[in-house]
């Protein structure tokens, strides 16, 4: 009788152990593996969109260097972006205002002390009057944004669509 009871208890313990293993597997799957893959998918999409945005803003920077007189012409800058959008997976936009509140494509100016051989003539508009020992430089700032539709949004953390943006400032003169 004692042997029978001992065997029964061992059998019950083994079943309980198998049950707990199944439970652990379910917990690991639901709370670790699934969120891991979902987060991975979101991460890949965001990384891909961010790479496209960086490439687009670099195209705008090159445009500004190539056409400094048109750098603040947002119609022309928009044309560059429209060419990209024709073949890109993400629709990139040029918002009217920068994150700082200024206009997208806005010019800014500063003075610097050049090397002896440097000499830069800045055409209007040139609101800054630099001392005679310094040279004025003109900079342009762009901002591009794109909306990314995430397969698994995280409420309160990562909404879908998520808006990504990249800003750059380059010297054009």
């Amino acid at each position, binding site marked *: 009788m004692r042997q029978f009871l001992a065997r029964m208890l061992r059998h019950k313990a083994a079943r309980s152990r198998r049950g707990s293993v199944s439970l652990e597997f379910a917990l*690991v799957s639901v709370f670790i593996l699934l969120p891991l893959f979902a987060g991975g998918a979101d991460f890949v999409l965001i990384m891909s969109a961010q*790479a*496209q945005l960086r490439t687009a803003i670099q195209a705008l920077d*090159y445009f500004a260097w*190539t*056409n400094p007189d048109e750098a603040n012409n947002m119609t022309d800058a928009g044309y560059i972006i429209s060419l990209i959008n*024709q*073949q890109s997976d993400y629709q990139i936009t040029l918002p009217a205002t920068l994150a700082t509140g200024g206009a997208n494509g806005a010019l800014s100016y500063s003075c610097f002390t050049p090397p002896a051989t440097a000499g830069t003539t800045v055409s209007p508009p040139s609101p800054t009057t630099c001392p005679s020992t310094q040279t004025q430089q003109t900079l342009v700032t762009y901002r591009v944004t794109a909306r990314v539709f995430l397969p698994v949004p995280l409420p309160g953390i990562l909404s879908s669509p998520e808006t990504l943006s990249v800003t750059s400032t380059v010297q054009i003169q």
Partner: protein
Amino acid sequence: MEFAICGLALLVFIFGIVNLGLLGMSLSALARGVQSAARAAAVYASAQYANEGAFTCPSDSTIVTEFNNAAGPALPGAGDANGSNPRLTITWTDNGTSSNAGDPPGLYLTLTGAYRWSPIGFNGVFPSIPLSITTVTTVMGSQNQATACASS
């Protein structure tokens, strides 16, 4: 038994991390290759124009070579034909010397690099992931010559 389950989860986790790193490397190489190839095409044309007052469009093979040099060993050799992986799509837009329906004058190159990336260790589990990067570069601004560059 617990170790088997946890080990499997750990293995998937480790392979996932490794694959995210490889994906980032491939994406970065793709972007670098596209940006560098487009920039090289612009320099190729402008250098000729500066020296000779005229230029010929860089060929598709020149652009593909520039892409491969810039992308480096992180990506396999690219091509511009169907079925290539990575595949480059080369599109020229010539607006001539005057604005065409409001578009700015000049010659523009739109270069798209597309790459189907496959994760290691998950063969048959996950399909390949399509990566794509597009850039545009002003090859020449307004100039007085016919520039018939062929798009691939």
